[in-house]
């Protein structure tokens, strides 16, 4: 995220909609904009009160073309709205030439655009995290909109965490109600289970094996799984080699043989699959595991006894000094099944029914009691009578 450099000194802010859009009910606009302000008040102590008269902090207007601030709107499409940072008054202007809609895939969703603009009104600049609300590009209506962790960190860095309210959990993950867990999944609880891939997408952890996938909960496997990969991720084949979600663009990448697939949520992006040699120059076919390492945000690929570091911003993306031996990752074995950067910040390596927890600060597999490697069944899949993996992971 990025901060502009100014913020409001008070947390009780007022606003007024001084000019409404044409052809839209005022009451609906009022409700959507209040909801958009609420996106930010949910994670802070900020409050937003509509005021019919007198001075307000944030003035909201719908206008067309040149509207008095020297920054004219350009008609449908193009720029949708703009807003001023606190130091410049915080006002938000929306292009009335857009087709503003509510809870619809048609037109432009007013709630999402307004929540973004109000982020500017509060002091946030554009983020380069593509999946965040403060990314500058409009990506269409999102029926299950949830504020991205990047945005939460941004707003809380300006206005605090909102101690007076019941806040999100201490972990980086934003969770909803705990999911129902089904114990002792017959396939996952086999000893020596070899998984294909495991990754976290939108705060949910998914495990792939063969043609099936499972969603993991805090202490086991979610009810209703396994499901077929083809139903959950249309277009993706079974028996994939590796997968990871790249937090910088929110997309999930799947690798199989010499090809890779890119998904936005559960939808495959146009033009995929592509050759690994095209999109991930320097990475071999049939990798064992892939993940984004929390230590530096780079993408690591493992195959047999070697690993590769991929930096999308570098040329070439894989340095000539790679591959290097996996032995550089103290305690991690060769020929891995899968690897994952989990929501608690640790990196986990999986092989033959066992897993290793890698400490990114000490750069070694953790020493713990019980020691690593541990059996995946009880700790990840809720197998047998052990009390899930939660307690072990939190140590």
């Amino acid at each position, binding site marked *: 995220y990025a901060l502009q450099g100014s913020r409001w000194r008070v947390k009780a802010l007022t606003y007024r909609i001084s000019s409404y859009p044409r052809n839209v009910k005022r009451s609906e606009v009022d409700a959507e904009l209040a909801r958009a302000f609420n996106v930010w008040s949910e994670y802070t102590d900020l409050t937003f009160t509509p005021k019919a008269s007198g001075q307000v902090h944030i003035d909201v207007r719908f206008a067309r073309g040149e509207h008095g601030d020297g920054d004219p709107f350009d008609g449908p499409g193009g720029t949708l709205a703009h807003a001023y940072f606190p130091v410049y008054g915080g006002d938000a202007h929306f292009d009335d030439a857009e087709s503003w809609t509510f809870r619809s895939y048609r037109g432009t969703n007013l709630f999402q655009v307004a929540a973004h603009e109000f982020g500017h009104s509060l002091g946030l600049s*554009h983020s*380069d995290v593509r999946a965040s609300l403060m990314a500058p590009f409009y990506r269409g209506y999102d029926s299950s909109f949830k504020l991205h962790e990047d945005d939460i960190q941004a707003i809380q860095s300006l206005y605090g965490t909102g101690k007076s309210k019941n806040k999100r959990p201490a972990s980086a993950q934003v969770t909803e109600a705990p999911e129902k867990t089904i114990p002792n999944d017959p396939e996952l609880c086999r000893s020596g289970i070899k998984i294909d891939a495991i990754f976290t997408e939108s705060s949910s952890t998914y495990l792939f094996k063969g043609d099936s996938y499972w969603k993991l909960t805090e202490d086991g496997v979610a009810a209703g799984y396994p499901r077929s990969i083809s139903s959950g991720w249309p277009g993706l084949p079974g028996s994939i080699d590796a997968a990871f979600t790249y937090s910088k663009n929110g997309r999930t990448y799947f690798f199989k043989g010499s090809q890779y697939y890119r998904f936005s949520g559960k939808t495959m992006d146009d033009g995929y699959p592509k050759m690994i040699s095209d999109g991930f120059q320097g990475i071999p076919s049939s990798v064992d595991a892939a993940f984004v390492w929390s230590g530096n945000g780079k993408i690591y690929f493992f195959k047999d006894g070697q690993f590769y570091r991929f930096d999308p911003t570098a040329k070439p993306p894989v340095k000539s000094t790679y591959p290097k031996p996996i032995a550089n990752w103290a305690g991690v074995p060769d020929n891995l099944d899968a690897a994952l950067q989990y929501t608690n910040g640790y990196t986990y390596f999986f092989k033959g029914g066992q897993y290793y927890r890698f400490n990114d600060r000490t750069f070694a597999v953790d020493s713990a009691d019980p020691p690593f490697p541990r059996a995946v069944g009880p700790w990840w899949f809720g197998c047998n009578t052990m009390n899930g993996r939660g307690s072990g992971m939190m140590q």
Partner: protein
Amino acid sequence: AAPVVNSDPQAMFYLSQFGYLNANLKNPGSGNLISEDALISAIKDFQAFAQLNITGVMDDETKEVMSMPRCGVRDKIGTAGRARRRR
């Protein structure tokens, strides 16, 4: 491939409008005053910000992202290096 400076005035306007090119391109003639290096650098900055392949060339993916509806606020609003430092 080297981009041709005057071949895509819309892209140059976009880069200027959102803070990647330090020039006022509301005057169409001012495109001639922008060096090729500055333009390549601006395209690379945009590509990096938009998480695209950083080529410095106005490729299809870059054009596609530039054509997306978006917020009118600049992406680059001045850097810490240009800001007045507190003692």
